[in-house]
């Protein structure tokens, strides 16, 4: 599928915003349990960070819509469409984050602040799942229609958010204990995200759609050759569902994503942990966050490029189970008949 930058920005930034709030509320609760309190300005920075990320994502999403003024109509079918749910949950999430921030600023009762924070976290997770389900419910793209999609959207968002929050705390020189708490959460969640993404790439490399050109046009012959696609040059169907230059670097990008999104940040976080543990101030978290941001954008880009829609069969652009792509390799034959079940 063709990667669209506005959607990439929306899903990556909104995911990180969810993660930031998740770990801010988490750190808040843990500090309370330990008998302390997160300072007022740290809470403010955290809330501003989360709202800024989600707000930027929302702005980016508007660039995807061709009728921006009608955007509000998109919540109409929230009972049926995951896209509707995402559109509904995004402002709700921002609103709840702001409420949590206000609770922290005006100093309402602790239980009320935690409750609003938990509500925000809950809506944030629902938002992440909705974003993932938009893609997961497109059953004609097997790289998307599997449980890894919503899981990845959520855990990568959490990992990214935790590291960005850590970086912010390090930049504003938050106290040592708080940074330690965050580091202890950021490292495991990044490892979990790496495992989930790795499994998703493994799944994508072996699973394949059972639909063939034979069934798509109902001609049960093994030797079908597509001669003409019915368009003189390109059309919406050839542009939207297939990204030629992206497909060529797909394999290399998997390694790039795994390195820049997970391996580099994890090594930096380890260095960070060692430094902070020994009581030295450290800014490794900032570098880790930058790396994760780049890796996160690359991951979402690759997610789109990997999507192999069955309608590509009609245009000779379907990547078959042998990883062969008729456009990238000479010859366009459909290949042998699939076994009859």
């Amino acid at each position, binding site marked *: *599928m063709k990667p669209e930058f506005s959607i990439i920005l929306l899903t990556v930034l909104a995911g990180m915003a969810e993660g930031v709030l998740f770990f801010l509320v988490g750190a808040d609760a843990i500090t309370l349990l330990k008998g302390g309190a997160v300072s007022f300005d740290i809470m403010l920075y955290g809330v501003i960070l989360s709202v800024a990320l989600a707000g930027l994502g929302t702005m980016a999403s508007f660039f*995807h*819509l*061709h*009728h921006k003024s*009608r*955007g509000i*109509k*998109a*919540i*109409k*079918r929230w009972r*049926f*469409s*995951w*896209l*509707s749910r995402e*559109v509904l949950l995004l402002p709700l999430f921002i609103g709840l984050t702001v409420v949590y921030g206000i609770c922290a600023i005006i100093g309402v009762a602790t239980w009320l602040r935690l409750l609003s924070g938990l509500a925000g976290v809950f809506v944030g997770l629902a938002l992440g799942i909705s974003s993932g389900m*938009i893609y997961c*419910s*497109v*059953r*004609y*793209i097997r790289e998307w229609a599997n449980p890894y999609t919503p899981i990845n959207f959520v855990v990568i968002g959490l990992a990214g958010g935790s590291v960005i929050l850590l970086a912010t705390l390090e930049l504003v020189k938050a106290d040592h204990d708080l940074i330690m708490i965050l580091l202890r959460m950021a490292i495991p969640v990044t490892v979990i995200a790496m495992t989930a993404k790795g499994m998703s790439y493994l799944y994508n490399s072996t699973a394949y759609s*059972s*639909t063939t050109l034979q*069934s*798509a*046009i*109902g*001609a049960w*012959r093994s*030797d*079908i*050759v*597509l*001669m*003409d*696609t*019915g*368009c*003189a*040059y*390109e*059309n*919406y*169907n050839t542009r*939207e*569902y297939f990204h030629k230059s992206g497909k060529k670097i797909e394999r290399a990008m998997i390694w790039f994503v795994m390195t820049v999104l997970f391996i580099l940040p994890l090594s930096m976080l380890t260095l960070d942990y060692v430094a902070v543990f020994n009581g030295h101030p450290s800014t490794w978290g900032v570098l880790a966050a930058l790396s994760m941001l780049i890796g996160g954008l690359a991951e979402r880009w690759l997610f789109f490029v990997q999507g192999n*829609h*069955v*309608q*590509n069969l*009609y*245009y000779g652009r379907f990547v078959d189970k042998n990883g062969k792509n008729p456009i990238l390799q000479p010859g366009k034959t459909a290949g042998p008949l699939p076994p009859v079940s």
Partner: protein
Amino acid sequence: MTQLALVIDLAKCVGCHACAVNCKEWNTSGTFGPLPDGEPYGKEPDGVWFNRVQTYEVGSYPDVEVFYFPKSCMHCKDAPCVKVCPTNASHKRAEDGIVLVDYDECIGCKYCSWACPYGCREFDEYAGVMKKCTLCVDRIYDEKLPEEERVPACVKTCPSSARTFGDIDDPDSAASVKVRDGAGYMPMPESGANPSNRYLAHRPVKTALDEERVIVKKHQFVEEAEKTDRPQDPEYFDFAG
């Protein structure tokens, strides 16, 4: 229930693209138009079409055959495109099963096109809305048209009568009879979308011209010329028989 649909006989289709062209002509000036073109005379022509005819070759040399596969919206019974639309712009009419897009509601998110397994929706970059085959809903109910013309433009124009239009849920409609007699099938049945359009398989058709039975009708002009005493052009009569 009524489910209007197209039944396309791939053995009769000669791949002339008349249906696609006539569709474009009708719909560009019709209620659901325009179907814009980008650079129509340039090097990289690009445009919105509701119907495209694809060409396939089967067999290996010298026993090869070519057949054509016209593809437009299947007006699926369980239309996945309708299910995902966040605004209700994409909808399936209860009265005749036609799947339409309401251009005033569509926000241009393209989600429906991802959900369509047949690649039958094309985005209009200029209007910013999704477009697709309407089964000529602005023709088939138009009482200003003579009765026999109230069919989709593609059906009306097909020179080899490869297309039949009708209610596939009515077992006695011409479309249903054609499906029954010709073993009509659904393309990509495993899509779960339950497409309504049906195809009759491509099969080799032997045609031979029986000279005895060929009737050549004299041109009206010639007949009139014969009635009068005008001098006749011998060359012309050679041609007209």
